[in-house]
């Protein structure tokens, strides 16, 4: 663990008398290593290290009887402060039906997460309605319809021959007629560098004005997380992020990278394949996980 590594660093430094600013460099190397091994983006780590360095060379570490624990405490606090933030929930204080759109790379977990959000909202007494707007992936519409059936949540009968924009517009009118109060839109996975498909998302956004555009990102994403998050945020000014597959053993450094580069909050995490596997994001738990 990081604490153990830092303890042995400080043990060998302490043998030479009082800790100095130079000694701390050794400890900073271990922290940097831990973050890179956790898949935090290279540049994000660089910025983060500058952030904690000023605290690390301060009295709280140099005069501490347990400098290793102190450094870990600082790193932990700074991680929480970076990833934490106010708006964790969904903003649902609007005139219904409130459109919420989920976007992201191929295979990140959007369709499953749309269904999970539907279940979450139904559990809160809401009337979620789902729109399958992915006409590219084979059986994507069926996938969401089956999930909706499992939960007794209405799913729009999208016509795969129509364009996603048309499906969303029809779906909105359908939800209004059905007295739905939250409209969850599942979009096709796409590359952040595919201009035509990114434009397609912008079109849907302009037409439906979703109150929440949420980026669904895989927790095991590596260095590329910053590129993806940046592009989706530039195109859509996302409201938040949902990090999936946190039931695995990925350290999840992508969480820090995404937050650092977009400034947008991580609202939920996916912790399993079943529809009840959705939790609210806790920055302190994520910080511990990243540090390993």
């Amino acid at each position, binding site marked *: 663990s990081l604490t153990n590594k830092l303890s042995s660093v400080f043990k060998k430094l302490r043998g030479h008398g009082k800790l100095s600013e130079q000694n701390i460099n050794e400890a900073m190397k271990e922290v940097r*290593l831990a973050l*890179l*091994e*956790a*898949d935090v*983006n*290279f*540049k994000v780590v660089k910025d983060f290290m500058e952030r904690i360095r000023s605290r690390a060379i301060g009295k709280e570490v140099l005069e501490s009887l347990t400098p290793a624990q102190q450094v870990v405490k600082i790193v932990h606090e700074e991680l929480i402060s970076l990833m934490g933030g106010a708006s964790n929930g969904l903003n649902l204080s609007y005139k219904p039906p409130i459109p919420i759109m989920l976007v992201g*790379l*191929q*295979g*990140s*977990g959007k369709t499953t997460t749309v269904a999970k959000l539907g279940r979450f909202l139904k559990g809160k007494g809401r009337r979620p309605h789902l729109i399958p707007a992915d006409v*590219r*992936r*084979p*059986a*994507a519409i*069926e*996938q*969401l319809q*089956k*999930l909706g059936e*499992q939960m007794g949540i209405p799913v729009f009968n999208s016509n795969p021959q129509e364009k996603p924009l048309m499906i969303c517009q029809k779906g909105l009118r359908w939800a209004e007629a059905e007295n739905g109060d939250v409209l969850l839109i599942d979009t096709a996975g796409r*590359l*952040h*560098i595919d201009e035509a498909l990114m434009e397609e998302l912008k079109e849907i956004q302009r037409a439906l004005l979703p109150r929440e555009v949420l980026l669904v990102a*895989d927790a*095991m*994403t*590596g*260095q*590329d997380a910053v*590129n*993806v998050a940046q592009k989706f945020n530039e195109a859509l000014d996302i409201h938040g992020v949902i990090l999936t*597959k946190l*039931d*695995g*053993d*990925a*350290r999840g*450094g*992508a969480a820090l990278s995404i937050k650092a580069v977009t400034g947008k909050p991580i609202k939920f995490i996916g912790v399993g*394949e079943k529809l009840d596997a959705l939790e609210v994001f806790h920055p302190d738990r994520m910080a511990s996980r990243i540090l390993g």
Partner: protein
Amino acid sequence: VAGRKKIDADLLAELEEALITSDIGVKTTQDLLRDVSLKVQRKELEDADLLKKNLQEQMYLILSQQEKPLSLSAARPFVIMVIGVNGTGKTTTIGKMAQIFKAQGKSVLLVAADTFRAAAIEQLEIWGQRVGCDVIKQKSGADPSAVVFDGLHAAKSRGIDVIIVDTAGRLHTKVNLMEELKKVRRIVEREMPGAPHEVLLVLDATTGQNSISQAKMFHQAVGVTGIVLTKLDGTAKGGIIIAISNELKIPLRYIGIGEKVDDLREFSARDFVEALF
């Protein structure tokens, strides 16, 4: 990085960034750079451009040893099991591979052994229709081993050349799901000695260091004989396969470069290293 004649700390820092941001990993990056640093110290390397070439050569050496295309043996049916964590592109890759084998004049049968995920069977059936091959399936929720059993017997009785088994995505850390996978493999072995002839692990190029953990645990559980690296049409470099190749020595079969049926290429170590940085 090129066009700079002096090798200094700045250049090495630049190279470190390029390697790490390609998901090569910290330890592998340190090993690669240590090697060139030694050469620089011994004055064996004094040109910045040659330094970059040297790094590429090191990576090429590791990857070229695993550049082994999948070749169908004389076994009939040749049984391929496709495995991996959730969402990496297994089902799509199966569709692409079926196309390749059909183009080689082989008869192909697909087995829908993902009986868990919503519409997984329908998804594979559509690929079967696109490529022109049958799909063996049972009801959703059936025992995957039972579907594989059916598939093997259908392949034998129809004289099928290649059978490709689609399995459900599963995290390598889920013991019960890994046990299920082991059971599927045992059924295949029992019904056809020598099979499965290929156990193909599908890895997502956007995944970071966790790919190593995935490769190790799937390899430990069922023995991986080939790797497909998907989604290389994005901006992720997939550098993690250098560490995987170095440690596990598993053949690199294909790369996925898109969502269409012909977006699958045989792995080329030279192309990969040139695209890396």
